[in-house]
């Protein structure tokens, strides 16, 4: 694996490998001494063009627990409007000897550009680009599903699981990466959103779609094993994606009553940060089914696995880029 830009960079075996390695990493995190010497002397740069404390500290913790040197580089705004261009920043990082660049950028495709424009030699990890993808989020979601709903044993995939992804699919990089990765791992995905928040062209994606949350929760597309709620920005109503936050919440929010429609074993996921009272009620967010906090913890293990696989020269059977 040279870069991780899209969940589509991983085939089934490659994705399972990441989850297996993440499981090993998670095991080391139970020890008193959490730090591994694996990436000693390697430099990981967190290049963040958007505020994202959660994702940045998750990557930072992952790199540090592998003994890598970590440089945090925050830049705001687009390259043209203010400050230095992406290219010049990349050249700077290259000159400083970055072995891996973890990039979060508001422009879809910026990590792709960073990886392929010839500006840097290091590995590029997409930590979320515009409306495109957020592959490590999908990996940690898959990891969480495997732990909760499978044994978490090495080599296991997610075959037969049914996952509903609910909310602003149109603008969601989390949804795009999850559709690709979960399908690759054998799970069935059904996207649930008002028609305005599904992209034109979604019919070519490897998943089902529905406009009716209650029907999906009741199992009309098959019994659910998980429901993943996406963050919805209330401002979207100003662009007529929906009439009001209240109407959105009534039609697509997950509350206690809707939660009760799910089979007993099904889990509730959210990539965070949550808008309590909009896409998810406090009851749902704080229920025993909720994996929200677990997802955060798993994020560190999954990102350790990704950095390890990219930088340690580990065998990469089944992983391509």
């Amino acid at each position, binding site marked *: 694996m040279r870069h991780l830009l899209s969940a589509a960079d991983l085939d089934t075996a490659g994705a399972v490998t990441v989850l297996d390695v993440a499981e090993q990493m998670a095991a080391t995190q139970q020890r008193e001494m959490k730090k591994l010497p694996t990436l000693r002397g390697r430099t990981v740069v967190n290049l963040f063009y958007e505020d994202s404390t959660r994702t940045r500290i998750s990557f930072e913790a992952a790199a540090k627990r592998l003994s890598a040197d970590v440089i945090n580089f925050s830049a705001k705004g*687009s390259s043209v409007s203010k400050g230095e261009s992406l290219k010049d920043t990349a050249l700077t990082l290259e000159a400083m000897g970055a072995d891996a660049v973890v990039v979060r950028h508001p422009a879809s*495709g*910026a990590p792709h550009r960073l990886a*392929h424009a010839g500006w840097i030699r290091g590995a590029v990890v997409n930590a979320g680009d*515009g*409306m495109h*993808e957020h592959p490590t989020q999908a990996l940690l979601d898959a990891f969480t599903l495997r732990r909760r709903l499978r044994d978490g044993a090495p080599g296991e995939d997610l075959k037969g699981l049914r996952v509903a992804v609910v909310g602003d699919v149109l603008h969601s*990089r989390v949804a795009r990466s999850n559709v690709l990765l979960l399908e690759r791992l054998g799970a069935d995905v059904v996207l649930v959103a008002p028609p305005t928040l599904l992209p*034109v062209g*979604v019919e070519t994606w490897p998943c089902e779609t529905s406009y009716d949350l209650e029907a999906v929760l009741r199992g009309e597309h098959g019994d659910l094993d998980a429901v993943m709620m996406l963050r919805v920005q209330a401002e979207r109503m100003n662009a007529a994606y929906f009439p009001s936050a209240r109407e959105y919440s009534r039609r697509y929010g997950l509350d206690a009553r809707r939660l009760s429609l799910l089979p007993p074993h099904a889990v509730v996921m959210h990539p965070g940060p949550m808008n309590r009272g909009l896409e998810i009620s406090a009851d749902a967010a704080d229920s025993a089914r909720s994996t929200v906090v677990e997802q955060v913890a798993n994020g560190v293990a999954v990102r350790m696995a990704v950095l390890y696989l990219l930088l340690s020269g580990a065998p990469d059977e089944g992983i391509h880029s």
Partner: protein
Amino acid sequence: MTYLLRGVRPLGGPARDVLLEGGRIADVGDRLDAAGAEVVDGDGLVALPGLVDLHTHLREPGREDAETVESGSRAAALGGFTAVHAMANTDPVADTAGVVEQVWRLGRRAGLVEVRPVGAVTVGLRGERLAELGAMADSAAAVRVFSDDGRCVDDAVLMRRALEYVKAFDGVVAQHAQEPRLTEGAQMHEGDTSAVLGLVGWPAAAEEAVVARDVLLAGHVGSRLHVCHVSTAGSVEILRWAKARGVRVTAEVTPHHLLLTDDEVRSYDPVYKVNPPLRTAADVEALRAALADGTIDAVATDHAPHAVEDKDCEWGAAAMGMTGLETALSVVQAAMVDTGLLDWAGVAERMSAAPAAIGRVPGQGGPLEPGRPANLVLVDPAARRVVDPYALATQGRNSPYRGRELPGRVVATFFRGRPTVLDGVLTEAPVHDLAEVGA
């Protein structure tokens, strides 16, 4: 100076000798003899009337770092053009007689190609009130094509008035059809690919809605309408319908919309970012068919050079546009001639005669007959070349054909009887007549 073009094939027909004398075509025949004439060996070369571009961005005044009238004229000559229409979205905008005359004079000074300024429809391209269209028409630049290109004249009343007003001087409004609200923040064609790439989509309907409205308006007021860079199959259908009803509408397509699809965007390489966006393979097929059957009248380059830094960045931050003057004929050969959709006579019609007629450019567009001004281009259709943007004359490095092999090569271009290009390279002396320029 007298030139004898020996054994060229006018419009791809049988070999003939063509004699150029005194800026005109003096004779076309077999085994012409002209003592003292400079002989150009035309064996295997197709002779076409000099190409006429309805849609060129020369960037001057304002963005001389991206292109100048001089550098753009060189690119045009090398591409086989003898006339180009310089778009109005300069800085300052070409919305007054003063600016269009300045551009026109710069073109005369460069002396490589006839530079015909396009006048803005509205002041500052702002779409609020009409620019002084009559003053631009009456100026030395004799503007006949008016366009807010880059922006759509989306106000229906303003568009109607512009269409009506330019009738007084036989002008035409060239519309950049893009419904602005439907394309806010748009980055690429809206469809399967944009859904995967997470780029804001640009629906085909945003173009088609404006084309439909404008053909209805043009029909209503009996005016000439020209539609810039048609990019969708739906627009083609509307144009076909309008022409069948007798609406005086003409349309152009760019070379890149005849060859490239939105699949290129998967690379996230901004060299493929352009307005209107690259569309689907089905659109490409419809555009080729429309150009072949005349529903689309002309090929226009939409040559849009940009400074390197405006493309050497992430997709979202990049400027829209591609260079095209020096690759247009090759791309048309690849998309239309080598596919059997158009013969060379058809190419002459679509790249010279039709655009000259739409732009009301006297002395351009052929035919290649005795007495006509000697504007012509010699092409070697058998040649092939790999495009290197750094080897082109345009200052813009943003050619989407970088590294691609394209058919055909412009061997010579004659502008008003004198060669601007010979053996595929620019000749030393510019063609302008200093007295004529008033220098």
